């Protein structure tokens, strides 16, 4: 009886923890050699048109406060140490999202002498978002995929966000102009 009720309480606490984690991912952004394209699009997700705060996502500055690391760029040798340090400074549990072709494979910079090329060689990545750069919608979709996998209780299996999000905004605009 005693152990049962204990189990019950731990279950509830765990559920609550998980719920909180899903609903409050604080994100830190690190640029390790990106061309800015991805960084701008990440920043754009904060702005009125996309507004990720409605999902509880908050972009913060200190790695100590962060849950999710969004890294862009092909990991240059100079940024390597910092990237690892930022990752290590983050308290557990922590997740990593790689944004942009460069962080996936090196992109156009693959094979350059001062570039490692694949974020996964340096730190474990949970979600990849391809695109050069991915649209803000794709980035939000990637984060939501991470949250979904948390909801299911699994650490996200390597999930790659498809890059075929329809350009509904454009079509709307042009059609509206007719």
């Amino acid at each position, binding site marked *: 009886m005693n152990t049962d009720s204990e189990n019950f309480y731990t279950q509830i606490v765990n559920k609550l923890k998980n719920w909180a984690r899903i609903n409050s991912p604080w994100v830190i952004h690190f640029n390790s050699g990106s061309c800015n394209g991805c960084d701008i699009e990440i920043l754009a997700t904060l702005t009125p048109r996309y507004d990720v705060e409605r999902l509880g996502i908050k972009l913060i500055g200190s790695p100590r406060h962060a849950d999710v690391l969004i890294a862009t760029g092909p990991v*240059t*040798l*100079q940024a*390597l140490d910092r990237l690892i340090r930022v990752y290590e400074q983050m308290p557990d549990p922590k997740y990593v999202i790689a944004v942009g072709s460069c962080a996936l494979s090196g992109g156009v910079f693959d*094979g350059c*002498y*001062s570039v490692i090329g694949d974020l996964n060689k340096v730190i474990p990545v949970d979600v990849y978002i391809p695109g050069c750069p991915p649209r803000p919608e794709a980035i939000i979709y990637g984060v939501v995929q991470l949250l979904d996998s948390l909801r299911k209780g699994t650490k996200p299996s390597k999930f790659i966000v498809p890059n075929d999000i329809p350009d509904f905004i454009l079509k709307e605009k042009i059609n509206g102009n007719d």
Partner: protein
Amino acid sequence: METIKFLESGKLILEKWIESSQTPDENRLDIWISANNLKSVVQSLVENHWGYLVTITGLDIPAVYDQDNVEIQPGQLEALYHFANDAAIITIRVKVPYSKPQIDSICDLIPSATIYEREVIELFGFDLLNTPNTEKLILPDSWPDGVYPLRKSFTNLQDLEISKKEQSND
């Protein structure tokens, strides 16, 4: 027409140091000078308020070998100092050999040149005399000394390690 006037006045200023010159484009003038004269050339340009320093470009001219692997022409480095005045561009070109790649720093004349100088020091291995700052600017901290990525002989860091190992094996 102004451009041509600018170029002519520039040529006039620099006349006594010119070793050879050419005009590859209507708004450009390339001037070869000897490395010793660089400072006086730049000084006269600055004093006459002829344009501003756009950048310093480094070029690597690798050594040429004949079939028997004998060096016909030793490897050279070339530094190009681009000065622009509206549309007119004067390029001052200095050639130095690999063995003694020494050029006078022009930072005391043009303070902003330090960034360009650090760049060519790192990437080409120029030896800029009296340049105020030789700390690494662009390359990673872990970069090995004496390896200049923009020289033609450099291919890749991994290859560098392989060839080092091979040398030690020999």
